[in-house]
């Protein structure tokens, strides 16, 4: 409450603003001075602030401000700082012996690589393989012990670096193609039916038509064993899956296997090495995947 004596008229009457509406007048009670000057100071400050910092909106962006501050720039700075801080350990990782590193789970470098790999996996791999690496139909589960192209740390590294069935893979490291036996007329439908029965029998499943198994074996040996091996255990050099185990990438029921033989499968994976991920990052994520529970020892 302002007790400013200047505003009091003689006769204990307060000064009014001079307005009068139907005889009702308004007292003139100005803002306290400290309040008013603080308010003016804020206005001056605000003008300076909008000049120094991004403030005035334009059509597509806002004024940049004299100080050149931006939250995006701060994030970029922070990322640059983190990259700089990690530069030496990344260089160490890029030159480390992967096999030795994979077995040395207590070392700082291993822990760093594993954590970094986990983060990279979440950004680059989880779209297909799932955030828990459990995979999905057509996208292998990376936690189990079945590997199409090999489960040693070097094999996993090569797969991630090169991708699968990519035109950029000129060294033919991860290239193969299963013929579409049915679609391309290589096998007649009865032959396909019999070979599907045989394949199902390989992993001990209940076979719908057991009397076709013997015929199927002949078809298998003539058409499939070149890649999937005589006993059906597959060939990791060609990414040909083991047909005797309990793991089915596309599904282990009759119809799915029939479709696989009919039309073939051509699973692909983009190459992560080179453009997208640095050498250290590929190695980190290889180490992470190797440590998910199915990684195999190197020979």
């Amino acid at each position, binding site marked *: 409450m302002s007790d400013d004596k200047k505003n009091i008229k003689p006769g204990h009457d307060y000064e009014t603003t001079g307005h009068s509406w139907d005889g009702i007048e308004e007292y003139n009670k100005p803002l306290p001075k400290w309040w008013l000057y603080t308010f003016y100071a804020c206005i001056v400050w605000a003008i300076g602030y909008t000049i120094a910092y991004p403030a005035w909106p334009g059509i597509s962006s806002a004024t940049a401000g004299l100080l050149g501050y931006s939250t995006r720039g701060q994030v970029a700075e922070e990322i640059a700082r983190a990259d700089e801080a990690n530069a030496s350990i990344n260089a160490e990782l890029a030159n480390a012996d992967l096999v030795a590193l994979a077995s040395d*789970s207590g070392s700082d470098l291993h822990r760093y690589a594993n954590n970094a790999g986990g983060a990279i996996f979440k950004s680059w791999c989880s779209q297909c393989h*799932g*955030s*828990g690496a*459990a995979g999905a139909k057509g996208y292998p*589960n990376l*936690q*189990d*012990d*079945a590997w199409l192209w090999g489960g040693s740390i070097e094999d996993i590294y090569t797969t991630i670096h090169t991708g699968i069935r990519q035109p950029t893979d000129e060294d033919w490291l991860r290239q193969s193609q299963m013929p579409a036996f049915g679609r391309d007329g290589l096998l007649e439908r009865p032959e396909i039916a019999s070979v599907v029965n045989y394949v199902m029998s390989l992993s001990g499943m209940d076979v719908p038509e057991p009397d076709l198994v013997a015929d199927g074996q002949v078809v298998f040996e003539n058409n499939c064993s070149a890649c999937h091996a005589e006993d059906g255990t597959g060939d990791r050099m060609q990414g040909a899956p*083991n047909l005797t*185990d*309990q*793991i089915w990438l596309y599904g282990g029921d009759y119809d799915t296997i029939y479709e696989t033989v009919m039309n073939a499968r051509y699973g692909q994976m983009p190459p992560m090495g080179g453009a997208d991920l640095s050498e250290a990052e590929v190695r980190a994520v290889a180490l992470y995947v190797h*440590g998910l*529970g199915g990684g195999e020892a190197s020979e």
Partner: protein
Amino acid sequence: MIFTLGIYYLTPWIRWDRGPQLPDQAVLIDLANRRFFFFWIEIWPHEFYFVAGLLIMAGLGLFLFTSALGRVWCGYACPQTVWTDLYILVERWIEGDRNARLRLHRQKKLDFRKVRLRLTKWVTWFLIGLATGGAWVFYFADAPTLLRDLVTLNAHPVAYTTMLFLTLTTFFFGGFAREQICIYACPWPRIQAAMMDEDTLTVGYREWRGEPRGKGKSREGLGDCIDCNACVNVCPVGIDIRDGQQMECITCALCIDACDDVMEKLGKPRGLIDYLAFSDEPRERAGHAPRPIWQHVFRPRTILYTTLWSLVGIGLVFALFIRPEIEMTVAPVRNPTFVTLSDGTIRNTYDVRLLNKHGEDRPFRITLTGDSALRVQVEGTPYETVDVPANETYLTRVYVLAPSGSDAAEAERTEFRFWVEDLTNGDRAHTDTIFNGRTN
């Protein structure tokens, strides 16, 4: 005063051997590693209820002492009193007795002597404050190391800030604010009134013996009080004890000593101002001796406080003895809930945290009960054992495998129990959890 100060300053320097990988300071609050060490006891954060229990005991103990003996906490143990007494002692050494101090205080002229005395006093106070803040930080880090770091200016800034803060508060609270803190800042005098009753032993004035007070040789019609104001002059909080019990009184008993001196000079019995219980007033008026002290001390109220205090204490000691030396928490990994291996085995993954409270690395074995088909495997090894580092919570991944076709592999959920055993001394702990089989 010497006793309480001694405890405070010397405690951080007591050593206690806990094994090679643990600090050997007897009392240490290790904030960085979140441990509290107290001689043979080591408190982890999740055992903080011990600290809560100790605080409850301290509170009940305070009630007990207050209801039995009045404001003894304030007079003898409160840091504010102890440090104020210390500061007054320093003041007396440097500036002389009360009259000399008053003269110096009233002296307008800032001559060399006044400046010298004041500076000496303040510097001494400041050094005491510094030592106080210094001793405080020693409770939070290894004392000898920290002392060396402090002297060589290598210690952490937080240590210096804390020291500076405590030095300044000690300096001002002990040197200048003194009993103003007790009167205006401390909540305890207010609470205390509820704790005291007529049986509480407290500093009081035998009004029935002293009144009516009066000066002069002729004691005709007058009580024993000669109104010399000695009790008022010595009172650090500036009250007149003859007006009865007052909130400001901190039971420092200086008025007792002052009055007894006067009474002795007059050849009268001591104890006009004395430790007394006011429930004795009618007996004393009637000319009887007061009841013995123990009759005042042992009454339902104090017995109740003692009982509560003991119960909490026994509970804490009991909890301390049954406290497990190893602990385990299990978090099943649900992404994915299960993994099928190539031979059809169903595998579940668990994040297992093992607590090793010992001062050395120890091998722990993880087993399970509840389903004979299930098998344990620690990640990265073919074994069931894991080496847990000393004094750590160690996270390890554990696989549980159910062979193809077993009940556990086919059922949606199977309950089982993880066991962990410290292979060194056979201590065991367990946690119940779930195994997820094929869901389709």
